[in-house]
């Protein structure tokens, strides 16, 4: 094998698996961790502890802006918390049941907010 051919072969040995592995894993539908992993929307009738979530933002400053809007609508006990996947969520954690939460979410949507119910993270 000539030196040039060896260099091409070496480059292929490095590049092919490094690109091929993530593609193969993706094709195999193996899950890559994503920030959506921390969003666990509640199905109707959910009996676990619930939060009313108004949105997620990439930085605390953006989340504080959303919080101000949410509080302005009347959710004065809403707060900002890290969501465990690198984002910051604005939520209200005083939900006691799915029907009450669904009613609050509908009310928030009528006030122009994007709100939904999520299962509280453990701990």
């Amino acid at each position: 094998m000539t030196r040039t051919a060896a260099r091409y072969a070496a480059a292929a040995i490095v590049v092919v698996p490094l690109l091929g592995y993530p593609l193969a894993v993706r094709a195999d539908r193996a899950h890559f961790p994503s920030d959506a992993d921390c969003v666990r929307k509640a199905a109707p009738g959910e009996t676990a502890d619930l939060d009313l979530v108004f949105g997620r933002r990439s930085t605390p400053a953006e989340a504080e802006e959303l919080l101000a809007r949410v509080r302005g609508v009347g959710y004065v006990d809403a707060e900002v918390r890290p969501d465990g996947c690198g984002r910051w969520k604005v939520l209200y954690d005083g939900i006691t049941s799915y029907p009450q939460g669904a009613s609050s979410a509908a009310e928030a949507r009528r006030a122009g907010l994007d709100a939904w119910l999520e299962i509280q993270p453990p701990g």
Partner: protein
Amino acid sequence: MSPGVGALVALNLGYAVMGTVFVWAVRGMPRWSDVARLCGLGYLVGVAAFGVVWTELLVLGVPFGAWQVPATLVVGTALSAAAGAWRGMPLPRGMSSSPSGTTTSLLVTAVGVALVGLLFEAFFRSARLQSVQAFDAWAFWIPKAKAIYFFGGFDEQIFTVSAGPTYPPLLPILDASAFHAMGSADVVTLHLQFWFLVLGGTVAVAGCLARHVPAWALWPSLLLVLTVPRFGEELMAPQADVLVDLLFVVGVLLLALWLEDGRGWRLCPVTLLLAGAALTKREGLLFAGVALVVAFVAAWPERRRAWPPLAAVTALVIVAAVPWRLWYRSHGIGGEAPSDVGGSGSADRAWDALRLSVDVLFDSSLWSVLPFALVLALAIAFAWGSRRQAAFLGAVTALVLLGGAWVTYSYTDLAVTADEALNPIVRYTGAIALLVAVAMPLLLSSATQERSS
């Protein structure tokens, strides 16, 4: 790519540039291939330099904020560049003109790079969205980092009341820098900072060894070390254990090479790496002491030439390590040495502590075959290779092992057990396991006489 990940990439690139320019200033890098080979060492040097400088500045009360991070990296890079220019170091030009090694070694290197690369892709997957699970991480490493991030310094309450008040602050400073880069105290994405540290350490070991050992000795050793069961679990934990081990091990590697070739530039990064280790964990001071004491003894035949620079390194490491110790003492915190240095301990406890250290080191469920491979490599090198190198690396390993036994023996509140909730001996022993990554290739290649330089 999320903004936090991009910011971490930029921050770590900053460490690498600053440290690589420093290495260029003290060594020179005639070719871009030298830059590629030594950028891992440069990265670790940059991390250590940043952490050491900011430890001293925070002790002096200089506030640590968002703009100070890039400013430090820019000023550090500029100072190193000025020093390099003043010393007349030429800028890198072109790639290596004379390809070194055989076709076989090129292909073995390619396979090694591919396999290590695949491993790091997998590490990235697991590190990308990890929560803070390790006890010490959420008990004090990350709270201290948050204190530096939110309050701009060593907040007296958190630094004196939280667990481990004598633990040095280099890692919390790095974490706080990452928080500033990301724009928030994002403890999830923070795990990627540890991915960068391990990657940088691996590239540093590979780059420093590449021209001294054959590819067949280097890459299998690196892969073996990276894939032992213990590292699979703990490599990305946001604690200081792996960082202190990396700084120590690369420092020992440079000392081993310096003992062989006497090239003085190696002692400049050694100084920063060992000072960084001494400011990363309490045992970092012990590791640095072991490395330097053994180097003094190993350099005995050339003591007229070798001891003065080694003494300078030792003095600088001490000078770097002292201010933090003065800070916590001035805040009423007891010293990091055990209250009972062992004088009143029983012989039974000493024996049990030693046996525990040996048992943990040879626990194959933690370190696989690493310790056995190290013993074999030492024996082969003593028989057919460089006895001096074998003696140096063997003595460092033995003293670190004995140091672990001394820790268990002398801190009488530690139970004599491998249970990590009660005794840190397993984390401590990681230093020896990582040392195998540099010791095995050096020892085996010395035995087969295949080192190219």
